[in-house]
């Protein structure tokens, strides 16, 4: 059975802190790993990673994949209250683009 495990499950930080969110996976077939941010409603896409060692970056957010050790991290620097959300990691196993999601990490950023 395909598995995606995220840690920690919840995190409280203060504005300005840097956070690292973890995602490990065990799947029979790997096509890509995706990160989504979910505020009050639907998840919104952050990154798709397919190759090891290549960092994807968008503003204060960055992510990298290690296909040998089967994990990815999402870094957020200089956190802001607007970063408070659930961060979802998902793996595309290539079968009809179905995604297997982790449980999500709830990040709370305090002023």
């Amino acid at each position, binding site marked *: 059975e395909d598995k*995606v495990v995220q840690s920690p499950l919840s995190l409280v930080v203060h504005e300005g802190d840097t956070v690292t969110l973890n995602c490990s996976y065990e799947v029979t077939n790997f096509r890509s790993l995706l990160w989504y941010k979910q505020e009050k409603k*639907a*998840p919104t*896409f952050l990154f798709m990673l397919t190759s090891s060692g290549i960092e994807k970056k968008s503003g204060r957010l960055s992510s990298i994949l290690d296909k040998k050790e089967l994990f990815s991290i999402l870094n957020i620097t200089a956190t802001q209250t607007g970063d408070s959300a659930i961060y979802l990691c998902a793996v595309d196993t290539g079968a*009809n*683009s*179905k*995604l297997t*999601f982790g449980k999500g990490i709830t990040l709370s950023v305090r002023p």
Partner: protein
Amino acid sequence: NAGVTQTPKFRILKIGQSMTLQCAQDMNHNYMYWYRQDPGMGLKLIYYSVGAGITDKGEVPNGYNVSRSTTEDFPLRLELAAPSQTSVYFCASILAGRNTGELFFGEGSRLTVL
């Protein structure tokens, strides 16, 4: 562009009632999905479809049915609602072959079964 539209946004059902959650997309996406999200549990795939007339079960299909008579619409039917089906339901779509990995999600339908 409306994207993925789900209705209703909220619904309360009594045990044993039936209902249909509607999902429509106007992006000509061939792949569509229904996920449910329970607190602290991520998203679990209920059913998916790779094109009109083709549907298949996901991870948690029991108690649900789907149909895909057109490319645009992918309704999810609950036949005999149970408290375990209390959840937030998300419909999503993607164009097969588009290599961005970005699923487009609807805004969700919050269902409570009492």
